[in-house]
């Protein structure tokens, strides 16, 4: 069944990862735009810190009491700046990602580096993907990296390919709000509505998507879309309603909420509109 799900995978930027419990997760892979924003933030932080260090050292240099002391301070200061530059270029990214799986820039844009199996990365992977930065940023401005991202399904640059990692947006859906029928079914509607309606998976999910989106559409567009499937579905289940959108809502409600054990009737459950999440 999961194989089927994978074969029928929609054309989007999600990546399916199967856990040892045979549960398939979707990870939303981060694209080049979001990642470059995070990178720019990181660069600002790094080189901002280096600039700050330079300023501090410049003040210390001016504060030396004798010329030889100032010279000494200048030399030590310059060596600190060189070390800071080295850390900014080669250590900053790898260290953050090895410990937390994300750099401060990635935190701000809620990105995370995980392995292609969806697990946290370790020191080796963090070091590899950031060493390979040297290859990705060639010939300038990450051209190699972006081309490589465009050519892979998981938006992986060379460093990601070598380290078997990907950058994801670990979004957590908020608590589910069930779809409800608003207003509740009127008696005359219930009179003609069949007791049991079964919809197949496609019908169910497409009606559901439509019902969740419909208040974002114009009234005319809503009717137009609903009319496209209301008639064949209505004919099949033997139910007719002048308003196609209402027809779909009634059919969906009956299919989902009735005919199961412990099913509260649709009249007792006119609870909420699908709230904006």
């Amino acid at each position: 069944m999961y194989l089927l799900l994978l074969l029928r995978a929609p054309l989007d930027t999600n990546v399916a990862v199967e856990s040892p419990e045979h549960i398939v997760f979707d990870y939303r892979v981060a694209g080049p735009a979001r990642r470059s924003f995070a990178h720019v933030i990181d660069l600002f932080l790094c080189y901002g810190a280096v600039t700050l260090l330079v300023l501090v050292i410049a003040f210390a240099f001016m504060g030396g009491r004798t010329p030889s002391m100032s010279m000494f301070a200048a030399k030590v200061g310059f060596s600190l700046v060189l070390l800071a530059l080295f850390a900014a270029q080669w250590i900053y990214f790898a260290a953050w990602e090895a410990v937390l799986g994300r750099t401060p820039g990635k935190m701000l844009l809620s990105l995370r580096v995980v392995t292609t199996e969806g697990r946290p990365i370790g020191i080796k992977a963090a070091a590899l993907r950031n060493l390979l930065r040297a290859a990705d940023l060639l010939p300038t401005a990450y051209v190699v990296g972006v081309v490589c991202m465009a050519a892979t399904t998981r938006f992986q640059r060379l460093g990601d390919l070598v380290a078997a990692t990907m950058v994801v947006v670990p979004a957590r859906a908020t608590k589910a709000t069930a779809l409800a029928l608003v207003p509740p079914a009127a008696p005359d509607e219930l009179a003609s509505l069949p007791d049991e309606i079964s919809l197949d998976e496609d019908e169910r999910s497409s009606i559901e998507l439509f019902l969740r989106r419909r208040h974002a559409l114009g009234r005319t567009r809503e009717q137009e879309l609903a009319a496209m499937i209301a008639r064949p579905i209505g004919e099949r289940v033997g139910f007719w309603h002048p308003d196609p959108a209402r027809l779909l809502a009634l059919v969906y409600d009956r299919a989902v909420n009735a005919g199961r054990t412990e099913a509260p009737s649709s009249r007792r459950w006119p609870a909420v509109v699908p709230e904006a999440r």
Partner: protein
Amino acid sequence: MSVASALTERAFADRRMSDWEELDAILRKASTTRLRKLSKHEILRLPPLYRNVCADLAASQAARYSAPLVDYLRGLAAAAHTLLYARGGSFGRLRDGTLRYGWFVAFPRTVRARWRAMALAAGLFFVPLAIGAVLTLRDPSFAFRIVPEAMLRPLTESYARGFADGRDAGESAMMASFYINNNIGIALRCFALGIFGGLGSVFYLVQNGISIGAIVGYVTSQGAGMNIVTFVVGHGSLELGAIVLAGGSGLSLGWSIISPGDRTRLASLQSAAREIIVIVFGAAVMLLMAAGLEGFWSASSVPRTIKLAVGAALFLLLSLYVVLAGRGKGSQRSKSNQKVAS
């Protein structure tokens, strides 16, 4: 598939909601405070809650509950999965002293296992070095084609002056930092650009070899040959050895794509990279030591004979270390490690 007997979504959610909320609370706590801040009770609850959510997710997919519920459960399960299935674990690192293992066993072993790439890298580095030196000795102006004259002249003058004055501490520190920044950067780039079929590594090895050869040749042709040997001999084995190792790692990386054996090119690249990175770590540490020596020892006013002796001893130690360290004991462990790695 019949769904007639499944619970309604509402009833299902009502029945299971308390577990989900408990797991959600633990996950939120762990995401802000790290795993070790969780209480004993929470840690014990995590696996059963995760298994339950996995079961709920499977049930809700089979019963075709609405997309938001399935998404919610999937997000919950994914977040718990990320927390539970951390690689290797920070616990293992503390227990086994992996750093010591890496330095005394994994690093020399990996170097020996890939000796062909290392030998090739040594050839690609030292042959251009010799060519550069010989050509410059024949005709000193050859050096200017490789290294700018404006850089060569002051360099030669400083070598010609000798080391009698030594360097003050500030300058030593500055030079050491410069060598860290410059040399480790070169070595890491030399490895990373090996991804392009090894070509980047070849470029860096040859380019650095021929420039060093030209500099040595030029300084010698100007009569300061003994001084540059005295300078280089202390840190030379570490520094040049590390460049060769980094280049060899890059060549290995490139070769794993060109000749993947019975795996896909990507799988071959990934498993090779995972082994080779140990060499790169080692080379970086070697360059760190070399930078310290180069800054504080090589240009100091210590007599030439002592410098030569120390240089020779270091070379011998390094060779013995690479050839002999990590043989014999612990072979079981390296095998099991490789299994985990692949």
